């Protein structure tokens, strides 16, 4: 009986803490999105200078790593596809497989996961450190809203930058397929190009971008939330940083599943 109660008790508690966290994250996201999309029409300005600084940090500095990984993944998928398709003598369809899976799925997902590890954690660590050193309190006593001052520039930068990086990842992932097709499978360049062009529909490309927009919000909000909930000193910041990466990757995958289900059933 005691064991039973313990098991159910801890499961229930775990579930309720999860729900409480989720509600708080939704509240924070609501506030951040209010500040981005509604407050500017009520006479409050967005701090564009801070946003540009964040865009450089989150976006420009991530270009090399996102590009290289997307290229490699394109190459890997092309190899795996060729391995299967070669048996049917249909290696030209590598173009379809790479093109569609990169634009619909892997481009947005890889970009989001890299940014969750690279920039989401940085947001959590930065805001967590500011919390520990009373800087967030200082902002509030100066009548500056921490959401408007810290979260909005980061969220906005993320929303702008993640879709851009996704386009880059799409392009370089497909290029990875090209390289394998042309140099290893000896397919003519123009045939592969035409095959890719007919395979990818605008719809594929845009569903990927829609996903990346929501991934961007998830990364920024989880980073910010974990940063704000830091308690204690350096140890708390470390925990929040780890938690931000784990939970944003988890939520990205969940969101991905939901969107894919939606696009799968309606299209």
């Amino acid at each position, binding site marked *: 009986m005691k064991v039973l109660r313990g098991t159910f008790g801890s499961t229930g508690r775990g579930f309720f803490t999860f729900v409480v966290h989720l509600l708080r994250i939704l509240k924070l996201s609501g506030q951040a999105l209010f500040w981005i999309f509604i407050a500017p029409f009520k006479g409050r300005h967005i701090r564009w200078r801070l946003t540009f600084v964040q865009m450089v940090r989150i976006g420009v500095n991530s270009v090399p790593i996102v590009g290289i990984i997307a290229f490699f993944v394109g190459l890997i998928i092309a190899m795996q596809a060729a391995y299967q398709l070669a048996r049917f003598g249909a290696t030209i369809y590598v173009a379809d497989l790479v093109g569609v899976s990169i634009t619909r799925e892997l481009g947005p997902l890889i970009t989001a996961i890299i940014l969750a590890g690279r920039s989401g954690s940085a947001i959590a660590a930065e805001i967590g450190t500011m919390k520990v050193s009373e800087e967030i309190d200082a902002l509030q*006593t*100066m009548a500056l809203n921490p959401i408007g001052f810290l979260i909005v520039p980061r969220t906005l930068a993320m929303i702008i930058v993640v879709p851009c990086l996704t386009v880059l990842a799409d392009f370089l992932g497909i290029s990875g397929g090209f390289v394998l097709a042309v140099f290893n499978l000896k397919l003519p360049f123009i045939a592969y190009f035409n095959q890719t062009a007919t395979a990818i529909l605008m719809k594929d490309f845009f569903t990927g971008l829609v996903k990346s927009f929501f991934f961007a919000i998830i990364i920024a909000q989880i980073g910010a939330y974990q940063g704000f909930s830091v308690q204690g000193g350096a140890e708390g910041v470390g925990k929040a940083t780890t938690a931000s990466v784990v939970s944003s990757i988890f939520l990205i995958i969940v969101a991905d599943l939901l969107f894919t289900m939606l696009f799968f059933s309606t299209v």
Partner: protein
Amino acid sequence: MPDPIIRIHNLHTRYGRREVLKGVNLDIYPFETLAILGRSGCGKSTLLRHLIGLQKPTEGEIYLKGMNMATASEEERNLILKRIGMLFQSSALFNSMSVSDNVSLPLVEHTPLEPSTIRIMARMKLDLVGLAGFEDFMPSQLSGGMKKRAALARALAMDPEVLFFDEPSAGLDPIVAVGIDHLILKLKKAFKITIVVVTHELASVFVIADRIALLHDGEVIFIGTKEQMKRSEDARVKQFLERRPDEEEIDRDQYLNTLVS
């Protein structure tokens, strides 16, 4: 007596079941320097957090310049907050900004002034606290005492009517701490300003304060001038002044019981 600039009425705060403030009543008058003294854990930091609007009371009211901080809307509260300055215990300078940007931030955000004017004003405030020439330093390059001074310059940026200090001499060597005390005295003379200092440093309190409030276990048990404090017959006030440790009464049976239970 003029009307109080800050009025705390029957302030209660609970963290869960633990009651930290148990009905604090305190009036702070314009242009005085009030020190809130108390032992660690007596609720003085909590009281200060209420005064600057970082925490909402469980019960009771706080009026800053006649505005109830607990019920004020965000806009109303921000109007009041622009008229106060706060020096945090850990200085709380923004580590990603230079000293000059730290001091300028409230001016940049809340005033329509030209950047060149703001630069000059920031330099004036830094000069006031003895940090002229350190404009381009980052907070990490400053010593603890210099950080406090820079944070004070930032707190003064908007020419506040009320200035709050949280443990101004915490973590500083005695000489630097005395320097901060003298800076506070200088501000008192130079500006018409109300100063509220939360501390447990007796020496510094006797130098800077006009009136002293002693907070004990969530209640104000004494308020008055330093002479009145020295004459006080209250055992708790005396204990604080004479720096006597708590007398530990150990009941053998009870002690054994707590160990085995």
